[in-house]
């Protein structure tokens, strides 16, 4: 064999080992899918539309790193240069090697070490315009592209703040070995190609040739031993990187591709640890983007962020309290460049922890009150019982609009079940869900309105109700749009705080904002919509003291009140209750604001008698 040298072996064997390891994992994951998901997978890969959209995302995320770019352009460029640069080096390296060998069947190592095997003596002045010259230029350009990313990666180790990251992930040994090898690959390639080009006086591009000439000039070589040992080094670091890849964080590269396919084929996280969860866990690159957005940092909790939790799952060791130490607010999921559903992974672990604990809700009411025909069944929610002004406002609004309603939890409430589920007790929550379901169905109303986003989310996700479910912001907005409630601009500067379960949890961002805009001058907070802060009162976190919660609330308030509003509006009794304890400005629920903004009749006292007069909205209202 002409094009063979012993030094290709570390690379070649490493490559084979890595391919087998990845293939084995992929096979295992696909085989372990639940039957229905397996069908989805098999249909998906035969469906050109789904396949194309998945491939498109693989290119956008896997190579171009679009979501990373959105996070920080410097971070995006760094990741793109590695992924896209290396990918194109492989692709164009292959095409270039075909030009020289004249065959399509080259050994896998041939393109990688092409410059060792081929010493192109052609020197053309306008070499870019010849085929070999073009490739020389292109390959050097791509190498430079990757090296620029490497330079950024080195800077990032020291100055992560320049990349928009205050904190980065703490490393482990296997990751470190892989990382060093990865970093060495491209400088090794540069040196090996340069020395070869320098020794033979040709064959390099605009980068490797001058460097090679310079190196040979300061280090006159009797033979090409220097270049040869560098080729060995290049092959060795490649080999070690490939062999350590399946056991290091770089396993995320092949796994993310599979995850993208899974998602595009409609495979979703389950309530228990499934093959999909395993793929998500392995797809985590431990980039640490989730660390900075986590509000537990404010409370001095630094060991429980999504990246550390997922690492624990991957290593099959998660301390119990780490599973419970999470706000389940979903902020980390929003910024995750891989789109890992960290919250659902956390809840899976919680379910495993409490599976042996029983609940007994046999005391729940079994008979249901007879209700006349009503349009709306109103479920205030447990938390609203602690903020009676919200209930009062809601009742006032419905009465004003002439809506007939039945208040399901007027004097006592059966919890919606989500607080239990967030503790991992899904099975135990079943009885509560059934009880509420029966009562809601019994009302025969067309719309279920709730004031609590926690209830709203679980009604939508778990209840399978045959009627329309609305959060009160959506319901009031409908009333306003159909003209049942007249409103006038009533407030000056109002900032809206998105509750986690209404915003990120249920994707209701617009209705509350539209409603506020009708009655006030809505001014933005420091973090809006899907990046909104958690108030700190979350039911998701168990292992946080009141002091820690208070610091998280203070941190949230700093950002919420950035633009100095007069009123802080929210749409959740829990957020209201939590924020008003510390907020220097008034905190109100949107329902309260709307109720206040309904033009009331103004009574002017004439000789002790009052007469209704036209309100400022120009409409005669009477009580």
């Amino acid at each position, binding site marked *: 064999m002409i094009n063979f040298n012993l030094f290709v072996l570390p690379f070649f064997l490493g490559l084979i080992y890595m391919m087998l390891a990845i293939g084995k994992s992929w096979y295992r994951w696909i085989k372990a899918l639940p039957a229905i998901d397996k069908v989805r997978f098999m249909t998906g890969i035969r469906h050109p539309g789904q396949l194309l959209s998945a491939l498109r995302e693989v290119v956008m995320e896997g190579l171009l790193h679009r979501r990373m770019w959105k996070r920080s352009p410097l971070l995006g460029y760094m990741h793109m240069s590695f992924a896209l640069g290396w990918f194109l080096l492989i692709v164009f390296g292959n095409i270039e090697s075909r030009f020289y060998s004249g065959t399509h069947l080259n050994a896998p190592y041939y393109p990688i070490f092409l410059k060792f095997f081929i010493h192109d003596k052609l020197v053309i002045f306008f070499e870019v315009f010849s085929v070999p010259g073009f490739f020389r230029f292109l390959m050097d350009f791509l190498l430079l592209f990757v090296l620029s990313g490497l330079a950024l990666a080195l800077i990032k180790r020291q100055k992560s703040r320049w990349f928009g990251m205050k904190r980065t992930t703490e490393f482990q040994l296997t990751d470190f070995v892989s990382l060093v090898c990865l970093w060495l690959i491209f400088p090794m390639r540069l040196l090996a190609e340069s020395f070869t080009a320098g020794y033979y006086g040709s064959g390099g591009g605009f980068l490797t040739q001058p460097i090679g000439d310079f190196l040979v000039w300061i280090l006159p070589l009797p033979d090409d031993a220097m270049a040869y040992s560098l080729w060995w080094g290049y092959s060795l670091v490649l080999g070690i990187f490939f062999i350590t890849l399946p056991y290091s964080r770089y396993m995320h590269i092949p796994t993310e591709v599979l995850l993208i396919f899974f998602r595009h084929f409609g495979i979703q996280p389950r309530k228990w640890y499934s093959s999909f969860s395993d793929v998500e866990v392995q797809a985590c690159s431990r980039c640490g983007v989730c660390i900075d957005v986590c509000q537990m940092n404010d409370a001095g909790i630094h060991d429980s962020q999504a990246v550390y939790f997922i690492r624990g799952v991957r290593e099959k060791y998660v301390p119990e309290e780490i599973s*419970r130490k999470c706000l389940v607010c979903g902020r980390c999921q929003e910024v995750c460049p891989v789109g890992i559903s960290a919250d659902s992974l956390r809840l899976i672990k919680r379910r495993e922890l*409490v599976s*042996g*604990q*029983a*609940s*007994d*809700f046999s*005391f*729940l*009411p079994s008979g249901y009150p007879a209700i006349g025909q009503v349009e709306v069944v109103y479920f205030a929610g*447990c*938390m609203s*019982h*602690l903020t009676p002004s919200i209930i009062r406002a809601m009742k006032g609004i419905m009465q004003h609009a002439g809506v007939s309603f039945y208040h399901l939890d007027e*004097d*006592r*409430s*059966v*919890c919606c079940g989500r*607080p*239990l589920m*967030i*503790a991992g*007790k899904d099975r135990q929550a079943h009885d*509560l869900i059934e009880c509420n379901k029966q009562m809601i169905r019994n009302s025969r109303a067309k719309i279920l309105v709730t004031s609590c986003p926690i209830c709203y989310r679980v009604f939508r996700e778990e209840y399978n109700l045959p009627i329309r479910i609305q959060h009160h912001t959506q319901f009031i907005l409908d009333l306003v749009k159909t003209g049942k409630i007249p409103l006038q601009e009533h407030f000056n500067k109002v900032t809206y705080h998105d509750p986690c379960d209404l915003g990120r949890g249920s994707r209701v961002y617009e209705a509350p904002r539209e409603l506020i805009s009708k009655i006030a001058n809505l001014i933005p907070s420091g973090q809006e919509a899907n990046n909104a802060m958690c108030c700190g*009162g979350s*039911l998701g976190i*168990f*292992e*946080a*003291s*009141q*002091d820690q919660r208070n610091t998280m609330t203070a941190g949230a308030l700093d950002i919420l009140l950035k633009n100095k509003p007069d009123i802080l509006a929210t749409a959740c009794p*829990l957020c209201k*209750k*939590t924020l008003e304890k510390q907020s220097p400005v008034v905190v109100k629920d949107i329902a309260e604001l709307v109720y206040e903004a309904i033009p009331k009749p103004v009574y002017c006292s004439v000789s002790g008698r009052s007469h209704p007069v036209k309100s400022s909205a120009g409409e005669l209202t009477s009580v």
Partner: protein
Amino acid sequence: MSINFGYSILRDESIDFDRNDKRIADYLMEHEPSVNLCIGCGSCTATCSTGHFADFNIRRVHTFIRRGETKKIKKELQKCMFCGKCQLVCPRGVNLRNVILTLNRAIEHLG
């Protein structure tokens, strides 16, 4: 030697601190120390969602655990709906949902 004081102790009404099982109380103190802040005001019990339907008294549960009368609380704890109202009204910032969760765990592991 027994001395006749002219009256005796009713066995059913006595609490034997030496014999009672304090392991669950110790486990709770270790894993959720905020329970030590409790002043026994009973706000938690007053607002409790479950308390509106059933005989469930978180303040009483606390007393039983402190005394080591753990047998009485096993069934009791299964009634909690985890809604978290108790925690919001607690004037001392006791992390009550975790108190219940920790007790569940203690009972599961310590029997």
